[in-house]
């Protein structure tokens, strides 16, 4: 208890990087994520977006939920919980996955780091303690530990990110392939670097004990000074991830346990994540339901749309015709994409209408007056934007 602040328990937590990030946050544009004070943007969202597309930027992932799962049964426990075959993740490798209810509905998505034969780290956007505990029940040797507050994470994304890490002295980091983990001695402890991120570009995530967070920040910003390093917030992340075709909880889907109406949740197939479901595994939670879903075909499909014109289609309803005869879905995320030079969107469409015409009803306000436009949209396959450098090893220095 803080005697001088009667609201101490209600205040947002501060990230270990906060002292530095606060200095950058010229607009005081703070939001919150998992109870942490969190920047929506620091100066200007578009400026930050261009930093991560042209130079590099850092994004605070301390509020992300991080769980260490260890023990002889850790792999078996995770294998039953998630839809991918965890036994096929090599040591020091990362895999993106989802986990589902028994009914095959997505609870959350996240990444699994395999740190040793019997040691994993699971990262996800929302607290997952209850489901992890339920999933661990009945396994003799598995321990689930929430390390969200003790492990600091900083995402470094953009074309110059590898060069900055090399300048910082992380020798050999350029040899790390996508989804690979490397360890480096740093400030008397170990710095974990994974070649992962949420921007679709070249990028890394840096993991270190909370106590060494500021030392890491300072070393990184000293090394990055000539490479245009700049913190970016939620708004820029949201632009970058949409171009990459990544989905965001509470924008493109609602976590299964958090829908108000139970049928408003989604299956991996509906979210275009069917490739994460490994039916070669004889059993995992939700397998029977997902097998049935695959056989039947998903009722909905999260489609990537290229929409004519340049009016962003946020919140639009999607129709089968310009005359709006039948509504066939809704836009979940939309933007004018500077990198692709296109009006892009993710939209949840009824699968049976994917082959027919797609029209988006867009409203745009000009000086408070709403204007309406019906815009034709076409389906895009694959990510809107996927530069070769994102997968190149070693990456060029730019």
């Amino acid at each position, binding site marked *: 208890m803080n005697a001088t602040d009667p609201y101490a328990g209600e205040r947002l937590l501060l990230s270990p990087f906060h002292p530095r990030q606060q200095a950058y946050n010229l607009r005081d544009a703070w939001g919150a994520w998992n109870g942490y004070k969190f920047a929506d943007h620091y100066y200007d969202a578009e400026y930050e977006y261009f930093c991560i597309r042209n130079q590099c930027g850092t994004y605070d992932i301390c509020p992300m939920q991080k769980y260490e799962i260890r023990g002889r049964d850790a792999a*078996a*426990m995770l294998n*039953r*919980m998630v839809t991918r075959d965890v036994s096929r993740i090599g040591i020091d490798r990362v895999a993106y996955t989802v986990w589902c*209810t*028994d*009914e095959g509905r997505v609870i959350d998505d996240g990444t699994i780091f395999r740190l040793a034969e019997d040691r994993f780290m699971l990262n996800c956007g929302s607290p997952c303690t209850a*489901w992890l505990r*339920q*999933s661990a*029940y*009945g*396994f003799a040797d598995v321990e689930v530990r929430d390390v969200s507050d003790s492990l600091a994470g900083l995402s470094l994304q953009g074309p110059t990110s590898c060069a900055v890490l090399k300048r910082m002295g992380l020798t050999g980091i350029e040899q790390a392939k996508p989804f690979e983990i490397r360890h480096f001695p740093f400030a008397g402890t170990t710095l974990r670097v994974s070649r992962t991120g949420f921007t679709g570009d070249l990028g890394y995530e840096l993991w270190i004990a909370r106590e060494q967070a500021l030392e890491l920040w300072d070393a990184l910003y000293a090394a990055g000074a000539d490479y245009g390093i700049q913190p970016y917030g939620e708004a820029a992340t949201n632009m970058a991830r949409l171009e990459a075709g990544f989905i965001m909880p509470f924008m493109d889907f609602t976590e299964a346990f958090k829908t108000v109406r139970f049928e408003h949740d989604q299956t991996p197939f509906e979210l275009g994540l069917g490739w994460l479901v490994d039916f070669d595994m*004889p*059993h995992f*939670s*939700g*397998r*029977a339901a997902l*097998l049935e879903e695959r056989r039947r075909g998903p009722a909905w499909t999260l489609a990537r749309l290229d929409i004519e014109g340049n009016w962003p289609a946020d919140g639009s309803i999607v129709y089968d015709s310009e005359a709006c005869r039948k509504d066939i879905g809704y836009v979940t995320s939309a933007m004018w994409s500077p990198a692709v030079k296109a009006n892009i969107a993710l939209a949840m469409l009824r699968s049976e209408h994917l082959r027919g015409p797609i029209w988006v009803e867009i409203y745009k306000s000009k000086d408070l007056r709403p204007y309406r436009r019906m815009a034709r949209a076409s389906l895009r396959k694959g990510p809107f934007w996927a530069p070769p450098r994102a997968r190149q090893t070693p990456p060029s220095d730019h």
Partner: protein
Amino acid sequence: MQRYDAIIIGAGHNGLVCAARLARAGRRVLVLEAADQPGGLAARHEFHPGFRACPAHTAAHFSARIATDLGLSGGALPTAPRLVGLASDGAHVVVENGAVTGVGAEDADAFRELDALLDRFAATLEPFWGRTIPRIGGPRLADKLPFAQLGFALRRLGRERLHEFLRIAALPARDLLDERFEHPLLKATLGWDGLVGSRMAPRSPNGAVLAMLYRRGRQAWAPSKLIDALVATATSAGAELRTGTRVTRVLVEGAADGIAATGVELADGEQLRADSVVSSADPQTTFLRLVGVRHLDVGFTNRIRRLRAGGLVAKLHLALAEAPRFTGLDSPAGRLLTAPTMDAIEFAFDDAKYGGVAAQPVLEVAVPSLDDASLAPAGQHVLSAHVMYVPHALEGGWTDAARDAIAERAIDVLERHAPGLRRSIVAREFLAPPDIEARHGVAGGHWHHGDFAMDQLLMMRPTYDAAQYRTPLPGLWLCGAGCHPAGDLTGLAGDNAARELLR
């Protein structure tokens, strides 16, 4: 290697009914029983040379339809055992053959009225205990039919009785009885069958009234004779019974379409294969111990884990040199209750909720050797008492001293109603819920493999995805008291399961 169509885990009465039905349909059936005697909670156990007892001391409501179908012979009793509310001064209340004695005329009339009403309700529900209740929201007409039929059956009660049924269905036993009766002992006696075996007392809303309706009618047996008859009919139909054979796990193997139960492994490591593995063990034992969580979905596992299956009944078995003589009672026949008031039951429950045992536990007493002379040497008797409420997790833990103390309290209660009984005790056995759990392999030592409660009944027993006897693990079936309809020696769960297996 011999391959079976079905391996049934557990030779309790439901396992035996299921085995008999499958064997009579031509299936090759093997029944595996860990104990040396078949019968599950109705298996006789010699607790003193020449004296045998089992946890279930009456079988008052076995399905007459199943008995007829299976040609059971050798022992249905002519009438259900009477229910006696013992008063220490001998002013007992006796409920027998649809009438009550020992109470005033108004209470006697009210009893006849309530008894007729409950009979009518029970008759309405009876067909539904004996059939599979489909899961709600199923796509097929067959999934909706039983609900429509139930609705129609209830509608046929007539408007007034339908309203009364809906009004009282979830009522605490106490509210129902206080509305209609004056005599405290009568109320305590009539409420008993709504509560016994579950985590409920007279003031608990939930399934008490439904339990009273479930425990009506059908056919009464001596449990020992019922088990003998079921073993005889199952084995003569070709089912193979192996006692003293403990199943340690259900074999689960990957199949083209996922995993499936393919057989069982025994304590000595022997593996036996079958197309269907049918467990009459309780759901927690079946899924959490014998199958293992890694073969089950997370949500399903969590629902099984959460089942309320902590037993609250201890057993006291007394070997008596002579028949007990209860003050003011002609014979010790029937089920004798030592609960003077509903409050006495409630207070005993209150103690147990917090890990304690009441200074004066309430008992249901029977003398099974009256109906089956083979249970005791000639002229001597076995007294069996259900002791309520005794928590599975006793505060301070279960020690021999704790067992002795509770047994002494129960004997004190008995002595008050049957002076001199203590002197005639040759030997005694006290089984706390953990002892019942260990001896009979039933989680929590719970008689009914889970409380008889509204959230654990019908298509929710033991939980959806396993309430139609089929389980999420292909090849694995349930046939025990943890399934619809529930516990007690009715045979209905085993019979329903067999019908599903034979579909």
